[in-house]
């Protein structure tokens, strides 16, 4: 049984970070994992994305042509990856920065106003955590607690950050859980 997801957005939205946290938590749960960032010209400004695979068996291709899930944090990302999503797959859309809905009708769509919520929580940089939470809620790819553990360690240095991010994770998780899917 394998979970894979492409997470994408503007550089600076903390996309690569949530991907790493997800992979790390997966490893902690004894799963086989791989994390692959996009690299190349996009790095200048533009968009960035990463592919995370979490599986019970050794990970074959770390490159996923048609992912089981896509987390789109901005419009270019949605335009780029929505078409590749597997039929029946999961599409998480950050409605704060994306003013269009999904074009696909054969996938589960979870709309998350990540930036708005983040601002509410007084943690404007936490939109990525909300999206991650939503992904976890919808897929259960790894346990929320496991991820929270990793977040604690990642930001061990700045306890303040830890708590706001955990709150963000939980808020996202609730939203995602409401659309729980099996992918």
């Amino acid at each position, binding site marked *: 049984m394998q979970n894979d997801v492409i997470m994408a957005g503007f550089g600076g939205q903390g996309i690569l970070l949530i991907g790493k946290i997800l992979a790390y938590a997966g490893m902690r749960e004894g799963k086989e994992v791989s994390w692959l960032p996009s690299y190349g010209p996009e790095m200048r*400004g533009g968009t960035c994305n990463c592919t995370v695979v979490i599986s019970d068996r050794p990970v074959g291709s770390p490159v996923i042509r048609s992912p089981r899930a896509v987390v789109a944090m901005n419009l270019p990302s949605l335009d780029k990856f929505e078409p590749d999503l597997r039929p029946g797959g999961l599409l998480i859309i950050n409605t704060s920065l994306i003013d269009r809905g999904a074009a696909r009708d054969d996938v589960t769509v979870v709309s998350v106003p990540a930036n708005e919520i983040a601002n509410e929580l007084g943690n404007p940089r936490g939109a990525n955590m909300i999206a991650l939470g939503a992904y976890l809620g919808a897929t259960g790819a790894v346990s929320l607690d496991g991820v929270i553990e990793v977040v604690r360690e990642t930001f061990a240095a700045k306890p303040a950050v830890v708590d706001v991010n955990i709150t963000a994770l939980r808020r996202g998780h609730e939203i995602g859980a409401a659309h729980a899917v099996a992918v």
Partner: protein
Amino acid sequence: MPETVFSRPESLRDVTTHYCPGCTHGVIHRLVAEVLDELGVRQRTVGIAPVGCSVLAYNYFETDFHEASHGRAPAVATGIKRARPDLIVFTYQGDGDLASIGMAEIVHCANRGEKVTVVFVNNAIYGMTGGQMAPTTMPGQVATTCPLGRDVDLAGHPIRIAEMLSTLRTPAFIARCSVHTPLLAVNAKEMLRRAFTHQVEGRCFSLVEVLSTCPTNWGVPPGEATRWLEKNMLPYYPLGVFKTPDGGSREPAPLSGSGGRSGHAE
């Protein structure tokens, strides 16, 4: 009916560059393009892009172009100019490209006195590859290959290309300028105009070192970057003309009281 007194020069193609917000590569591109327009040489100009953030310069200038291998643009320029002396040839090179891997090529291109113009963009860092130390990186400046800051005891002091090349005997025009403020940009344009004019008149090799910002790899916002350059780079990289074709040689003489020219034994 309003008159447009400032707009994109003809020699600069109307496309969005891939440069980061506030990166002064864009300013330098425009200044070069304006000079080509004003000298009316665009149609017979061939540019040479380096390997660096400006690797795609060939997409930005409305002239024919060559994309050179890393550091070798001066050799490519030599090939072009020797093949077609009627063309106006310029290289656009970063500090990693020109001062590190391309050191031999720039020194020899300058020393042969190739009648080409070199636009040398010194941003004290390897931009394109993600902020590694350059030969021009400032002492103590943090870079991804000197995480604790450049240690001059291990990596030496920053190389000053304008100073070094101006000691060569072969006639040349060599200047350093900056674009971190609009007024200095105006001065930079003047330096570029003089450099290209020397080439148009078939006089000599010309090189203009332009201090430039790299907000992304310096890790500061563009506004900060201009102040960082002013504070850290300007004192070490003085602006001005270092060499003119008729200005004679600028190499240091032996320190007095040493060996001297004591002649034959008898």
